[in-house]
């Protein structure tokens, strides 16, 4: 965590929820680092066999950033929306780096485990260090998804929020429903519809 007292986070969230776009920009770096750290722990604890929910982790981040006192539920919900947006941004930044890097260029050779995948520690480190984890294809696929999601946002902002919360932040439908103040069933319907729309957008002939 950089500087920024708990009340600062609360204040920014409030401002953002009242339509202050700049507040988000100032909020981002505070949350961003914490989320990265979370990503690391998320992976390493997995190794030890713990079941960790992203939501729990984000909650933890919020507590850390906003402080124990004076937590208002509305703010916490906003915090989730911010976290989801930032998770998306972390991955997209990562994808941009990967796309611009030619295969092999800059990426140091990695040893793989016997299933042909990165070990969990490696994966976590790479996410933290923002280094070569994605294949260029995966990076391109993600960037395509990001573009499509931006387009969806102009058509149907609610759906793009569902996608951010469920796909990028990893929340369950119930949790998403809670944050958005709608029923789970509605979230599920939004999801199915958004998914097929996005699929069409990213695979469609352009």
């Amino acid at each position, binding site marked *: 965590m950089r500087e920024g007292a708990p009340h600062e986070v609360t204040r920014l969230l409030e401002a953002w929820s009242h339509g202050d776009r700049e507040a988000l920009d100032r909020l981002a770096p505070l949350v961003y680092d914490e989320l990265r750290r979370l990503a690391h722990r998320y992976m390493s604890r997995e190794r030890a066999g713990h079941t960790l929910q992203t939501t729990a982790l984000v909650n933890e981040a919020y507590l850390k950033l906003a402080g124990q006192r004076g937590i208002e539920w509305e703010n916490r919900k906003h915090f989730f929306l911010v976290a989801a947006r930032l998770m998306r941004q972390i*991955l997209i930044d990562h994808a941009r780096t990967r796309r611009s890097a030619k295969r092999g260029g800059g990426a140091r050779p990695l040893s793989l485990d016997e299933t042909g*995948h990165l070990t969990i520690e490696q994966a976590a480190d790479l*996410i933290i260090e923002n280094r070569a984890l994605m294949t260029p*294809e995966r990076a391109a696929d993600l960037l395509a998804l990001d573009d499509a999601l931006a387009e969806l946002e102009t058509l149907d902002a609610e759906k793009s929020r569902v996608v951010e919360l469920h796909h990028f*932040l990893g929340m369950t439908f119930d949790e998403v429903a809670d944050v958005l103040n709608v029923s789970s069933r509605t979230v599920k319907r939004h999801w199915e519809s958004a998914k*097929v729309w996005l699929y069409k957008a990213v695979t469609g002939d352009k």
Partner: protein
Amino acid sequence: MNPERWRQVDRVLQSVLERPPDEWAAFLDRACAGDEGLKGEVRSLLSLYDEAGSFIDRPALEEEAGLLTVGQNRAIVGEVFGNYKVVEHLGAGGMGEVYLAADTRNERRAALKLLPPYFTTDEQRVRRFQQEARAVLALNHPNIVTIYEIGQADAAPFIASELIEGENLRATLKRGRLGIGEALEIAIQVAGALAYAHEHGVVHRDIKPENIMQRPDGYVKVLDFGIAKLTERKREGMEDSLEAPTRAKVLTSPGMLMGTAHYMSPEQARGKEVDARTDVWSLGVVLYEMVTGTRPFDGETTSDVVSLILQRDPLPLPQHLPDAPAELERIIRKALNKSLDERYQTAKDFLADLKQFKRQYEQDAEAERLQPPRGVTVRRAGGGNDADAATVVGEAAATAGGVEKRTASSAEYLIGEIKQHKKGAALVVAVAVVAIAALVFGLYRLTGQNRTPVETSARDAAPAVTSAPGGPAKGIKTLAVLPFKPLSGKSQDQILEIGMTDALITKLSNVRQIVVRPTSAVLKYAELAQDSLAAGREQGVDSVLEGKIQKVGDRVRVTVQLLRVDSGTPLWADTFDGKFTDIFAVQDSISERVAAALQLELTGEERGGLAKRYTENPEAYQLFLKGRHVWGQFTPESHRMAIKYFEQAIALDPNYALAYTGLSETYSAAGSNSWLPPREAMPKAKQAALKAIEIDDTLGEAHTALGAIALFYEWDWDTAERELRRAVILNPSYANPHQLYSYYLTTRGRFDEAIYEAEQAHKIDPLSPKMYGGLADAYQNARNYDRAIELYREALEIDPGFAGNHAGLGATYEMKGMYEEAIAEYQRAVSLAGRIPIALSALGHAYAMAGKRSEALGILDELKEMSRREPVSPYDFAVLYRGLGDRDRMFEQLDKAFEERSSRLIWLKVEPFFDPFRSDPRFQEMLQRMKL
């Protein structure tokens, strides 16, 4: 599209998705009420619904790490799937999460893979999944990872398979490209796996380096056969009402981390139906990547890759590898031909070319190495196709004389046998239905013990190594002689290698103090590089004998090593150099020294056995081997030929006891299969067996043959017991006489003894599905059904493709009243063995018992129809009538079976299925007629 229009589209789309798919089209018509534009929009989204599948369902961060932490698919340590308990998470595999698991029954370690969940509500899908799973389970090949179980826990399908310790090809390739020889070796093993799977109707669909594992001992194992198909998401009925998706399914699979699009065939990329030729393509891509270190179709995004696959030819090999052989280029181009018709049509063809090229390549490399650097013409690979094994053998034989030819023929017979093995196994479906079948005479040669004594010369062995009592060889009771390998990596002369192996096994089997695994059990290690100690452990032996052999001109060099399996300690090692004509002296010498190193005190008789010769006449010997070879093909025509060869051998050497045994077995098989009328064939079989015994009363095979005739045909119980006991004593290391004796004891109701003998057979050849099944049969007849079920299942884990054990398991379920399970097992047996009467009648019986009368009657009709074209045993009709409760017709058919002397009647007294009929006077009369 504007937000307004999207809201309309979205509303209709969401409503449609809430309905079952078969109502979609009709609902869409109603909902759009003539707004064709709206309908078009929704349809175009709906048509992608299935294809979109689980696209982005998995949280992005987990996708990145290849983890699945929050999904519904996550296994927790200690959780049980089918028979497997999760021990720890291993990582993400190509298709899902992989865990280390332990079999709850025997603690065996396994890899457990959880697949993405699919919709279990769709009954048709579930059935299709199960069908596919059966086909995959039935695969049994050294280069295919063995699948133990495919099942479903809640909505999540799981697969438990052999745990492979090694490195996958992706990891190997990360270190750089491979040498051509190494790449060919891998490609050949993969192609072998593909050829086998394709023959069994399974297409892999996802060949890529991630799915190819290399064990440290050189075995290549292909993972995830057919799994792509199992997890495919496609809904029937969609194609009719909506446009079929033709887009590449590149974004749908959750395991896309490594970018599998590179290995897709053009037809796959187009979303079309795929067949075996898709696997050929993918292996072509892998081969290209192995030798060049570069993927033939590569691009920045998935769609770039796909468009290259569809439109471009890969760069010629020399662009990456200036010295690339032209033949390799040709082979790869043929595999990577975009036109299905121009590509290799089968993996087998691809394999043949790869093997041929590898031989050439190695010969050229060897020639280059041996020749002085200048002024030499080196044959280029692919320049000529005449240097195949047959020619090599021919040349060698011409230079080395008859001795080589004999050895070669022996091995040829055995190689023929390897190829025949599966066919035999399929036929054996019969065996377990009522514990054994009419085919048994023939089958035990195919699936059980195979002995082809190789000519031995009676030279004195070199002085044996002596070691102190209680030394390193202490406690060794079992031995496996592993197939000999070439001394250097170059061209394998399998005929020589297996001939050597079989000769040593035959000799050492004469020694009572050790149990030697039969040739049939070790043949599977022939094709590949082996880890001798691992093979020894797999065979459950204390010691292994491994060796290398190479023939150069008329000289031969043999190296051998005897190892303790538990510690890996060498007990003895030696090298033999000599003229090729001395090969038999070398064999004598090795077997004597092995006995000495194991500190066995041999009796005079055993010493004689080590150097036993069956004929002095080389020509007769060759005819005998030819007879055995065609015998192994197991067709009426091949058996007519076999009879001819054996008779010719006997004409040259009238004292050739083994040839009489061959003749006896051929007539027995012909009689049992109705290729000849039993009443004509069986007396001839008996006569030949008696003649063999007259010549050599110590010949176990002859007593086995005579005992089998007495048991299955003559129903002469005393003779059967006497002869089979004798055979067991004479050849303690042969599993087959033990098994036949066990059958005999069962028919007499002596169940404890029967189980004991079946255990002996199983101990001698623990990996043989037939011996395993025989043990299960013994428990089944003793009415210990639960133990029988356990054993059949264990046997099926070793070889899921052995139809007889599916049938045996089915029968046992039936005896327990578990009809649905029984039907499923019989269906597996039918799908493995084909629609042969013995399997069909069993299935029909189970249908009838389960109350599915019309299915049972359908099978009755099928058998009746079949009987117009080929012999169908009345016993099979009796089985069906028994199930249908048609008592009169059943007895009528049993009478006919008696007239034909059907071997299956011998279980009449003990078989549980006949319990409801025992009080019927006709049944009692039947037993009396059979002296049971």
